[in-house]
Each structure stands twice: as C-alpha cells, then as structure tokens.
C-alpha cells in the first residue's frame, strides 16, 4: 500500500485531464484492495466473508460506472425521441 498510493497519485496527476481516467484509476484501486482483502480472508478460511467482500466491491464498481453512464443514456433517449423511435 505504501507504494501503491503514491503511484496512483502520480498517475492521477498525469492522466487527470482525460475523462474517465480518474474513474478507471479508482476502480483499479478498489479491485486491488478487494483482491488483497479477499486473499487475506481466504488464507484464514473465511471464504464466505471473502465472497461478500468481492460482491461489495463489484456493487461499488457497478454503481460508480452507472452514475457516469446515466447522462449518456438520457442523451441517447433524446436522440431516439427525435427520430420518433420511442413513443
């Protein structure tokens, strides 16, 4: 962790302008942390809790990306209404 967080800070500094790069970096941090915790729990035979950690990480990722994707879905809907494809 001591090395990973400065690395991601530097990557954020480099790619901060790019849209969705920050989201991607945050997702990767979540994946790394969740995998770490998962392995730790599995080592101690807490497999159900490890599964739960994985599930919660997935839910977090999906909610992040859905929040970003919603404006485009509504834009697409407007476009389809312009074509009179939706009634």
């Amino acid at each position, binding site marked *: 962790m001591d090395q990973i967080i400065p690395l991601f800070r530097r*990557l954020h500094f480099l790619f901060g302008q*790019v849209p969705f790069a920050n989201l991607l970096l945050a997702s990767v941090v979540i*994946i790394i942390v969740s995998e770490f915790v998962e392995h730790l729990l599995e080592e101690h035979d807490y497999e159900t809790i490890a599964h739960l950690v994985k599930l919660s990480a997935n839910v977090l990722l999906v909610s992040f990306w859905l929040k970003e994707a919603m404006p485009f879905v509504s834009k697409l809907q407007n*476009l389809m209404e312009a074509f009179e*494809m939706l009634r």
Partner: protein
Amino acid sequence: MKEVVFAQLMDMLPFFFFVVSLMILYVVLQMLLPDNRYLDELIFYACLLVVIPELIVVFEAVVEVVKVLTSMLFAFIPIIGSILLILEGPLSFIAWNPIVLAIIQFLLFVTDKLFLPLLLIAILLDVWSRGMQELPLTKMAQLIRSFLIISTGTAMLVLTGVLTTAGALVITLNDTINTPIKKTLEQAIPIVGSVLVQAISIVKKTQVITSSFIGAAAIIAFITTLSVPILYILLKALTYRVLSSISEPLMPTRVTLLFEDLSKSLFVLCGIATIIFICVVVVIVLFFAMSFFLVGRSG
C-alpha cells in the same frame, strides 16, 4: 472558411488525445493487474463512454440539418412552383423539371424517417455485440449498413440521372484533369468514396452553369459552407479508423473492433450527409436561378 475547418480539426484533437492517453493508461495498469478480466471490461466501457458523446453530437447535428431542410423545402416549394408557372418561357432552356423537387423531397423524407434511425440501430447493435461478446449481432449490423450503402448509392444514381436528363446539368466538363483525383478519392475513402466523387462532380457542374448568373464568389461561398459538415464527419470517421489501427497492439480486440465498426458507420453517415448536401445545393441554385430570371424580367 479556413478558421471554420481549423476549428473542426482542433475539436478532434482532444478526443484523439484522450483515447490515446486511455490506451497508455491501460498499458500501465496492465502491468499492475496482469490478465485481469475486470480491467478489460473497464477499459472497454471507458472507451465507450468517451466515444458515445462524440457520436451523439454528430447525429444531433445531422438530424437538425435534415429538420431545417425539410421545413425550408416546404416553405420554398410553393414559391418555386409559382415561379415555375410564371417563368415558363425563360426557364425552358435550362428545363428545370418539377420532378427534381419531388425526388429531393422524397429523399429528405426517406433520410429522416429511414436512413438515420437505421444507422443509429446499426451503431447500437455494434456496441451491443462488442459489449456482450456471447451474443454477437454483428451480422445484423453489417446487413443494415450494407443496405444503407446500397440505398445511398442508388439515391445518388437517381439524383444524377434526373438532374442530367432534366437538362439542367448537361454541360459537360473536361474530365481528363480531375479523373486521377476522383480515382484516388474512390480508393482512399473506404465505403462512400464513389458517392463523394459523384457529389463533387454534380456540384462542379452546378457551379459551372450557375456561376454565369449568380457569380462565382457567391456559389463558392455556399458550397464551401455547406460542405463543412461533410468534411467534419469524414474527419471523425478517419480519426476512428486511425484510432482502431493504433489500438490494435495495445488494447483488447473488442475495443479495436468497436472503433472499426464505428468508423464504418460514420462513413455511411457521411454518404447520407452528402445526399442531403446535394439536395440543398440543387434547391438553392434553383432558387437563385429563378430569382435571377424574375428580377431580370421585371427590370
């Protein structure tokens, strides 16, 4: 004119830069998480979210142009029709046929109600089949796209045929000079090259007959202004092509294929926009010619 084109080019640069930086970021992250299936998914969706707004902007622009044109034509047709009745004599030597107007209106109607929605469906199918690789619908998207290519080609053929047999564009140019350019264009631009070449020759012929009565400067200004959207779409499609070729060694295959499909769809959109462009040029030239004759007659 130069500023307009340059601004469009400058608009494309940040997009290009963003996608290339996403590729670099993907390569860096892949070193941290080798062979992670989440990472592939995430980079795919990031690229999708960068690309889709661009596509939506292009589509909105084209839809707006078509809407404006259809309403403009509805306003113009009574005027043009009445002038046609008044000026039967003087106009007979360029022999503008009313059927040109009917065909233009029909083409705009078909573009608005059939071509653009079908193209949107094709793009959605492409995105679907790259997102859900277990349930690919690429054949369907390809079918729709090839249908659109064939229809745009046919529409262009019909327009050329009507315009030349109606006598408006029978003046022939010396084609020996620009034939190599046409051939190069046809081969260089993948799908709609021949449509574009047809458009260029139609516009050039129109320019020759109209420059005698409205002046070359006005018509050149019109044509360049109208062709900016086409150039913009073409530029965008070529950018996608370049991105797909750059991303081949770096990104997952599905991202490359997505860019390639989107560039194909944008080339088809470019063909459709060319047809609209020809319609506008013909109507405007018709209107100018008529007003010239009307003014000439009263004064």
